[in-house]
């Protein structure tokens, strides 16, 4: 257990506003998803298909990457490759500089967050305008996203109002959420049209057309990618699908799992730059394909995680996420999927708490639209942490002693016979309020006193 994680989670637990905000958004998301799933009797078979499509792509990643690259280039796109976050940012910044871009709009992409693009652009002195409403809020607050679908989930309407009053040129009174959304619409309109470059992510990379697919409910992706001279896409290499039809099957799962809708309001397949005769669109279209640990995941037993569609259902249903929110996780991706990914991206020593701060209740796997065995993968990280000696020595010693006795029943029985009466000394009327070495339990709850005599001792007396 690292103190940094404990401190972050304690801070989150003490913030009642945060809890309220998390409950509001994730509660609605859970209700809506449940209704969408209930209205789809074949949901289980659809999940199997979703899993199989993604696994098929993972198993043939080299084939599909080549096919996508070939078709994207044929459509007029420039395809770039990045092994690391740094390489990916360097490529994007390089294009911005070559185009002499003064203003860059960006549609939310978790891959962009993962590679630290906002930070890299700030360092390069390039004006970045976040266009997703939540990312706009996060940018004004100088904050980071706390959810992969609702990045500003941690902000209450009052906090948003203050931010808009301070930063918008024509905010008005902002008495309602509608007024806040309107103010953001006015604020960002001119920015969309004035941008030199628009950056988006991709929900899917379609191999047989070389298209990239974006999904939004606001319409900000198309407003980000259509007016500027240049459209840059940053995408993880696992986003491939064989064809548009395969993307459709995954869209059904993704959108229902994320928001409970049947399809996002704006689902767009972008293919190359503006064509001859086209009325609008960018002159240049760049696609940056990013590895950043993904090929390593293939060889380290984490291939199933490459199925992830980034729907956020596992976050919305996680009892731990719902208490501590996204920032406490300390990485780009929070919740169960983040607890699997962050050790890949940030290293296990820093992220070791994430796989451990989980009750292994299995709900995340149950709601995952592509059946990622998240609990098993979290167990995998725990094994790795144990093997790497990250578990504190006190716990290792304790478990070692316990194991020594568990496989020696005679000794185990003797220890029980000594321990039970000793522990019962701390009990008052059946309950223990506090006891040395039991603070983890008794700080928040009472401990029922153990039995005076163990079951096995009583059985022995009965001669069974």
């Amino acid at each position, binding site marked *: *257990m690292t103190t940094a994680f*404990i401190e972050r*989670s*304690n801070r989150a*637990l003490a913030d009642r506003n945060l809890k309220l905000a998390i409950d509001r958004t994730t509660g609605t998301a859970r209700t809506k998803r449940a209704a969408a799933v209930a209205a789809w009797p074949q949901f289980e078979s659809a999940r199997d298909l979703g899993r199989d499509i993604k696994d098929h792509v993972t198993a043939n990643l080299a084939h599909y990457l080549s096919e996508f690259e070939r078709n994207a280039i044929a459509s007029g796109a420039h395809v770039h490759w990045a092994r690391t976050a740094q390489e990916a940012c360097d490529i994007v910044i390089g294009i911005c500089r070559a185009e002499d871009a003064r203003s860059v709009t960006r549609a939310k992409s978790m891959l962009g967050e993962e590679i630290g693009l906002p930070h890299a652009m700030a360092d390069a002195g390039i004006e970045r305008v976040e266009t997703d409403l939540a990312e706009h809020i996060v940018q004004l607050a100088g904050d980071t996203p706390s959810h992969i679908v609702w990045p500003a989930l941690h902000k209450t309407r009052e906090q948003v109002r203050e931010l808009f009053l301070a930063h918008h040129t024509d905010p008005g009174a902002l008495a309602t959420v509608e007024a806040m959304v309107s103010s953001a619409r006015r604020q960002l309109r001119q920015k969309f049209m004035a941008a030199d470059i628009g950056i988006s992510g991709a929900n899917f990379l379609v191999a047989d057309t070389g298209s990239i697919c974006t999904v939004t409910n606001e319409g900000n992706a198309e407003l980000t990618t259509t007016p500027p001279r240049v459209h840059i896409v940053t995408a993880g290499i696992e986003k491939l699908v064989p064809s548009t039809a395969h993307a459709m099957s995954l869209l059904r799962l993704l959108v229902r799992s994320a928001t409970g809708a049947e399809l996002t309001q704006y689902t767009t397949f972008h293919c190359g730059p503006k064509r001859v005769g086209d009325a609008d669109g960018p002159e240049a279209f760049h696609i940056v394909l990013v590895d950043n640990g993904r090929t390593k995941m293939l060889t380290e037993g984490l291939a199933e995680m490459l199925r992830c569609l980034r729907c956020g259902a596992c976050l919305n249903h996680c*009892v*731990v996420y719902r*208490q*501590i929110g996204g920032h406490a996780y300390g990485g780009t991706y929070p919740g169960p999927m983040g607890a699997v990914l962050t050790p890949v991206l940030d290293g296990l020593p820093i992220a070791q708490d994430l796989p*451990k*701060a*989980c*009750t*292994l*209740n*299995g*709900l995340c*796997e*149950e709601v995952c639209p592509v059946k990622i065995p998240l609990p098993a993968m979290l*167990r995998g*990280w*725990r*094994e*790795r942490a*144990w*093997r790497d000696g990250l*578990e504190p020595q006190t*716990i*290792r010693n304790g*478990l*070692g002693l*316990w*194991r020594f*006795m*568990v*496989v020696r*029943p005679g000794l185990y029985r003797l220890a*029980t016979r000594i*321990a*039970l009466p000793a522990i019962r000394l701390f009990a008052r*009327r*059946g*309950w223990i309020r506090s006891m040395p070495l039991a603070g*983890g*339990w008794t*700080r*928040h*709850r*009472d401990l*029922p*006193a*153990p*039995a005076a005599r*163990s*079951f*096995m001792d*009583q*059985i*022995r007396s009965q001669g*069974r």
Partner: protein
Amino acid sequence: MPISAKNAPRVGLFVTCLVDSMRPSIGFAAIALLEAAGCVVEIPRAQTCCGQPALNSGDTAGATEVAKHTIALLEGYDHVVIPSGSCAGTIRVHYPELFPAGSPWHARAVALAARTFELLSYLADIQRFQPQGVALQARATYHDSCSGLRELGIKAQPRKLLAKVEGLAITEMDGAETCCGFGGTFCVKYPAISNAITEEKTANIKASGAELLLGGDLGCLMNMAGKLHREGSPVRAFHAAEVLAGMADGPAIGEVA
């Protein structure tokens, strides 16, 4: 359907380390129920713990050592029955994962997994058991423990059995399937997070208006009962097996006889 002594299954009862130390009455309730269902019940003498603490801590070597001990201990029975979804899930789901496929130990783990059952689902699904002559005037709510629910599919079975208890009304709480925050070692490693989860659980228990909290896993029950007691709630907690065996007139979890 009456089972003749001739084809009565020999059941090895693995009570779990928590029941052994914390609440033996669950073990005795299990014996009574299995015998009423026509089983020949034996208590393997060398039983200790299924190894979950090591398994969930990532100590695979430790878990494997404990698993070997437990497999050897439980191999001779027609069925192995455990009054806990998470311990039964450990043997059914996770023991086979500990050994390389094709190895002798893997074969033994798989064979044991196929014969191992959680108590309430064993009574309801395998023995088609119906409790008779048990009465309890009370309103109860049932917590579906996560491992039992999601690893073993235990949901309807305890409710079906409890429905036969005369006078007992089950009032479902909101979030009956939501984790109680126990999570084994999780609750002592991350007590503040665990507590926040448990507080939501106990709020739902109290809001259900039930006098009794029932469940099939002692770990979760101790967690919720301990929190309810700290909060001064009058809700009392029992393992469902205790109710089914007619033992709910005795002290609830944490109560003194």
